[in-house]
């Protein structure tokens, strides 16, 4: 009986801790969102942090990521076009390619790439800042860490994910056109008609909201995980591990939710 009681207490404490942690993430996201729309946030110092975040998250990876997205898109488009031709469904090849790539795959891949590269770095940096007492030192120097360090990173991260998704999507659309119609412009009306079928207002809103949610997730969750780390050095890797696992599940949940909204 004693062991059952201990087990239930342990499970309950774990569950309450889990709930508290998610409440912390949601509260932090809400606070960052409110501050992002507060004009007073934007001064010379915070603008500089936003610019740096965009530079490190989007600009630095632009050539490599664009090339990767172009190659992947072209290969997938070719697979879809060839398979559709084999089954006599060539008319649907373009629409299927665009739906798979632009609406689903590229936004998710962009978010995962940014999460692995910048999310992990942000998580580690914030955990170390927290452990080394740098956050408290900033407050002591009259600088609000939420306004100076965290919200600008969330804004920069969200803009970066949104911009990279838009760029790779446009690239995929161009490649899809070239793969299906070849190097000529006479099929633009047909292409536009398919675009109209795919990008309905609802699909466009879902895609935009999904990209925004991905952008928020890849910065909010790592920052919060870093802030939750107890102030002991050996907790730094644990904080990064927890943040990254949490981020992966949140990205998957956003993707599944967007699929459910669009197709169910």
């Amino acid at each position, binding site marked *: 009986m004693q062991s059952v009681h201990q087990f239930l207490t342990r499970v309950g404490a774990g569950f309450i801790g889990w709930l508290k942690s998610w409440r912390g993430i949601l509260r932090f996201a809400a606070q960052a969102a409110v501050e992002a729309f507060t004009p007073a946030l934007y*001064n*010379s*110092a*915070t603008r*500089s942090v936003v610019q740096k975040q965009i530079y490190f998250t989007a600009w630095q990876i632009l050539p490599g990521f664009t090339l990767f997205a172009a190659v992947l898109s072209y290969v997938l488009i070719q697979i879809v076009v060839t398979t559709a031709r084999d089954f006599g469904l060539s008319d649907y090849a373009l629409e299927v390619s665009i739906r798979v790539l632009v609406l689903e795959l590229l936004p998710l891949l962009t978010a995962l790439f940014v999460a692995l590269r910048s999310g992990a770095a942000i998580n580690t*940096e914030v955990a*170390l*800042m927290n452990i*080394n*007492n*740098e956050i*408290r*030192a*900033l407050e*002591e*120097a*009259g*600088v*609000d860490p939420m306004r*100076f360090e965290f919200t600008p990173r969330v804004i920069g991260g969200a803009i970066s994910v949104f911009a990279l998704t838009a760029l790779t999507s446009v690239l995929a659309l161009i490649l899809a056109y070239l793969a299906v119609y070849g190097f000529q412009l006479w099929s633009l009306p047909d292409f536009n008609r398919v675009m109209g079928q795919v990008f309905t207002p609802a699909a466009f809103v879902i895609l935009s909201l999904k990209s925004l949610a991905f952008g928020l997730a890849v910065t909010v969750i790592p920052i919060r995980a870093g802030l939750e780390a107890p102030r002991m050095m050996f907790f730094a890797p644990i904080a990064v591990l927890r943040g990254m696992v949490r981020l992966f599940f949140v990205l998957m949940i956003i993707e599944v939710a967007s699929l459910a909204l669009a197709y169910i």
Partner: protein
Amino acid sequence: MADDAERRALVDQHGAAALVSETMPLRANLSVLENIAIVPQYRENLPYAAAADLAWGLLARLGRTDCAFKRDPALTCEERFVAKLLRACILRAPIILVDRPALLLPDIHYPPFLEATLGALEGHYQTCWIVDYAWNAPLYPPR
């Protein structure tokens, strides 16, 4: 201070004071110049160039411009102390508390160094208190 409890009580009592302490590190991913300039840049919305000029001027007063572009791990104890002290000076707090200088400057005879540094910054701060233990009193010149 007679002991650590008394020291903590004094630091807590002066919450509005700018603390120069081992427990208040510099931002590790910013240079010394940026660590100092960030205060007026954030608090007074100065453009970075103007804030950096202010910070550079303070570093020049102490003859420490050579460490302006170094980050925390590359600094010597003196350079780190100077960066923290200037960050406190530029904040224009009514009181600067230099907490346990022996921890900040472990390898030098710090009382003359403190006197020279604070002397060079005359006019850039209102009051500066050095919080040290009573058993270190003989290190300081009599007043």
